């Protein structure tokens, strides 16, 4: 059974092919071919034409032939392997003046450039001419069919003069008063228009038009059928003007851009049907102006897909009587727009799919139970004020749409409504199915971006390659540099706004000297330290190891190890913290373990700094200060935040450093620090340097006087008083048999000693502050 069917099919196919072959042979047999080739028998096309009789077949072999060619006999000119006819930039290349003439398989080049003389690749001036499978390059007009009926233009590949912009190029195919033409399977690119003027009953199908101006343009053409064309990246898709009874179907139009970038435009067109077209990523999908024209005229737009256009359908406000049925409006930035002011009335929207439909289908009949209304707020504004379109894709436009839909207080009048919107988008027809050819490159791009991100982030862990040059490597330990380790402050003043923080201070810290800055809170100690570090502006002069703190702050700071009152660190561990500052100070990383040991942090090296106690943090700050082994240490209240034990250890460390020859300047209000460390004390009072004294003098001043009450025998009371008075005290005798004397705290033993020497026995005593 199967076999019989196969045989049947096979024999049927064989029959068809035989009959076709027969037809061709028959055609050839009554018209023997004249052969043109560079080597003869005919070497020019014109000579073959002269010799030919109507109905002859002229075969032209590969080669380059000069134009122009004018065909006045109804012959078939057939090129083999695209022989070239070149006009060298003048006139029209081939003119077909004989009815029924056929031109097939040529490459035509180099027409003239005068538009009002219609310089073309092929001029067709007679009916029933066939122009087929030609290649046209560098011609002004491509195929110009003028006043010739029943012409077929098929399978040609046409581009215009490449040096002109589209406006100055000629039309790729132009039909002029040429009824019943068929234009099919042509590929038009980089030309002006594919246009028909005053040509009725034309069929334009299966053409591809790219990078040109009008994909298809109808002017005063009735009864046209335009189908299966692919029209990509042009200024206008298919524009139908002043034409009636037009059928547009299954065209695929994409990337139409520019002010009039309409995929399907209609101006004064009546009885038009646009069905099953796919219109994607154009400025506008439909554009309707005065279409349909007459009240009884038809304007049917059905089963089209309009996706990702700036506007799905643009209608002039005067449009009446258009029917939009079963279309899919998919994610157009604006689904329907009215151009200019006015309201849309008298058009019908039925069962279209709207991707932004927010309703539901409770009864499951495939249609939404609520009407779709095009009443977006921002959109409505942008229709009225076109400049506002500039704000689309902005969050503010989205926010306004959202607010408009969430709080419908100022709902605009809907532009249109579709009472029963479809719930399902139409499937994409095969001719418009997208390809996935971008995916490979896209994966590559994505991976490149991932790598970019990873590399950017990885810089955080890539060790700095910069090597420490030997000259930059500081001493591992020990001797200060040859620079003077002195700090000199001359006429230093600092104001914050109108408040004087400190005024006219001058002093010197000699190398190896330890200076304490003594004063109440707010006396200006910290200001002075910041100035020495070059962190603030000031008047006067500060030299740190011969560097001006203001002008060469970086070099000055390179000689200073600074320990703040309460050091704050980044969230790193102890080791990493030291390594970070070692790099900043260009210190030898080998010093890090040495210093950890020295300040007693070796066992804490891996701990995160925030987990350290205050005392350990202070040690860490000291270690940081010592990284580059600077000759000068600047300390702000070094032990203020430490407990007693930590304080003692820390002071011992500082004391050792002082003995190694470091110059120390530290702000303090603890006598203990001053006594342990300082050689001299700068007394800062009321924003001034009051005087410079020794630590002992400071202690003496600090000690407060106390009142001693001494019980002695009555007999010895006067002697006791005189004894103390002679030694410079100011004792007095009170009625209860006691001697009262005010002494400074450190002198209380001296009172006892004196009385002992004077032979006064003290029976008892009391001390009061």
């Amino acid at each position, binding site marked *: 059974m199967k076999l019989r069917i196969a045989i049947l099919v096979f024999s049927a196919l064989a029959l068809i092919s035989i009959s076709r072959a027969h037809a061709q042979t028959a055609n050839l047999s009554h018209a023997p071919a004249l052969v043109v080739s560079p080597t003869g028998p005919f070497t020019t096309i014109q000579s073959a034409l002269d010799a030919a009789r109507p109905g002859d077949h002229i075969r032209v072999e590969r080669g380059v032939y000069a134009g122009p060619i004018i065909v006045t006999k109804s012959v078939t000119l057939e090129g083999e392997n695209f022989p070239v006819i070149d006009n060298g930039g003048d006139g029209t290349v081939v003119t077909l003046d004989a009815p029924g003439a056929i031109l097939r398989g040529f490459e035509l080049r180099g027409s003239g450039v005068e538009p*009002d003389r219609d310089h073309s690749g092929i001029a067709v001036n007679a009916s029933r001419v066939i122009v087929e499978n030609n290649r046209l390059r560098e011609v002004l007009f491509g195929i110009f069919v003028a006043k010739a009926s029943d012409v077929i233009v098929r399978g040609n590949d046409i581009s215009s003069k490449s040096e002109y*912009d589209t406006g*100055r190029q000629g039309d790729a195919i132009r039909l002029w008063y040429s009824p019943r033409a068929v234009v099919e399977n042509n590929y038009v690119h980089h030309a002006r228009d594919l246009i028909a003027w005053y040509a009725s009953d034309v069929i334009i199908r299966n053409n591809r038009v790219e990078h040109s101006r009008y994909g298809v343009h109808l002017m005063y053409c009735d009864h046209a059928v335009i189908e299966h064309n692919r029209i990509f990246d042009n200024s206008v898709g298919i524009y139908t003007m002043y034409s009636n009874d037009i059928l547009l179907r299954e065209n695929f139009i994409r990337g139409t851009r520019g002010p009039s970038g309409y995929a399907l435009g209609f101006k004064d067109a009546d009885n038009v049907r646009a069905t099953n077209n796919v219109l994607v990523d154009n400025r506008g999908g439909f554009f309707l102006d005065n279409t349909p024209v007459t009240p009884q005229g038809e304007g049917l737009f059905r089963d089209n897909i309009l996706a990702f256009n700036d506007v799905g359908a643009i209608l002039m406000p005067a449009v009446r009587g258009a029917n939009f049925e079963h279309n899919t409006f998919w994610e157009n930035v604006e689904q329907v727009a009215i151009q200019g002011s006015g309201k849309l009335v008298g058009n019908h929207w039925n069962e279209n799919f709207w991707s932004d439909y927010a309703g539901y289908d409770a009864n499951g009949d495939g249609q939404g139970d609520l009407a779709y209304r095009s009443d977006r707020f921002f959109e409505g504004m942008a229709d009225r004020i076109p400049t506002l379109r500039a704000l689309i894709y902005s969050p503010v436009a989205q926010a306004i749409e959202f607010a408009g839909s969430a709080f419908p207080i100022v709902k605009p009048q809907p532009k249109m409504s579709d009472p029963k919107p479809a719930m399902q988008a139409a499937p994409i027809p095969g001719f418009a199915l997208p390809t996935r050819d971008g995916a490979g490159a896209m994966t590559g791009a994505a991976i490149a971006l991932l790598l970019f991100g990873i590399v950017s982030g990885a810089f955080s862990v890539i060790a700095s390659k910069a090597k420490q040059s030997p000259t930059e490597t500081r001493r591992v330990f020990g001797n200060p540099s040859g620079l003077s380790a002195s700090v000199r402050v001359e006429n230093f003043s600092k104001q914050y706004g109108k408040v004087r923080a400190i005024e006219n201070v001058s002093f010197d810290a000699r190398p190896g000297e330890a200076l304490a800055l003594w004063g109440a809170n707010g006396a200006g100690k910290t200001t002075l330290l910041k100035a020495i570090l070059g962190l603030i502006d000031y008047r006067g002069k500060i030299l740190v190891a011969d560097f001006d703190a203001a002008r060469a702050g970086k070099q000055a700071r390179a000689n200073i190890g600074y320990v703040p009152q309460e050091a704050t660190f980044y969230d790193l561990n102890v080791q990493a913290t030291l390594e970070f500052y070692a790099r900043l100070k260009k210190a030898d990383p080998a010093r890090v373990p040495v210093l950890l040991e020295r300040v007693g942090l070796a066992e804490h090296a891996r701990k995160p700094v925030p987990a350290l106690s205050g005392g350990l943090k202070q040690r860490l700050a000291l270690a940081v200060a010592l990284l580059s082994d600077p000759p000068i240490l600047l300390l702000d209240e070094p032990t203020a935040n430490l407990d007693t034990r930590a304080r003692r250890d820390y002071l011992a460390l500082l004391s050792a450093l002082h003995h190694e020859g470091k110059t120390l300047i530290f702000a303090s209000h603890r006598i203990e620090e001053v006594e342990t460390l300082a050689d001299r004390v700068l007394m800062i009072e009321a924003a001034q340097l009051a005087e410079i004294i020794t630590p002992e003098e400071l202690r003496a001043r600090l000690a407060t006087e106390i009142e001693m009450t001494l019980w002695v025998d009555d007999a010895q009371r006067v002697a006791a008083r005189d004894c103390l008075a002679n030694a410079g005290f100011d004792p007095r005798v009170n009625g209860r048999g006691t001697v009262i004397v005010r002494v400074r705290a450190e002198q209380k033993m001296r009172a006892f000693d004196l009385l002992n020497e004077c032979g006064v026995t003290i029976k008892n005593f009391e001390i009061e502050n």
Partner: protein
Amino acid sequence: MRKSQLPITNYQLLLGLSLLIALFLSACAQPTGEPKPPDIVYNRDMCEACGMIISDARFAAATLTTDGRSLKFDDAGEMFGYHARNSQVQVRAWFVHDYDSQKWINGKDAFYVIARDIKSPMGTGVATFAERANAETLAKRFNVNVLTFDQAFTAIKEGKSGM
């Protein structure tokens, strides 16, 4: 707190600056006394009447209206057609292009040749000339007469063309 408000001031400054720029630009765009033909951006601008792209300078035309608008047309014939249909639009000045030099000329002083086979963008077949002699040359080719502005307007209005 005082400092934290500074960025806003900063932005206000920018806004102020932008308004200044805007004022400056809009001042530049003000029309001047002597009527001047508008700039047509070829291959971008659209015809006022038909919405087609204006590409061909030889046929492009424009009118200035008394209310300060400028209307651009892809075809001088279409300009006449538009104003014939929209008589409420008051025209202050008419402009067409010289067919040969493609320079703007005053429409009232131009010479007109109307022939069906002059392939103007809208098929009205109107070519316009600054010099009568050049108009004569083309008119002879199509065996028609050279027209004045008023004659041409009337011819279009009465439908002696493709419109």
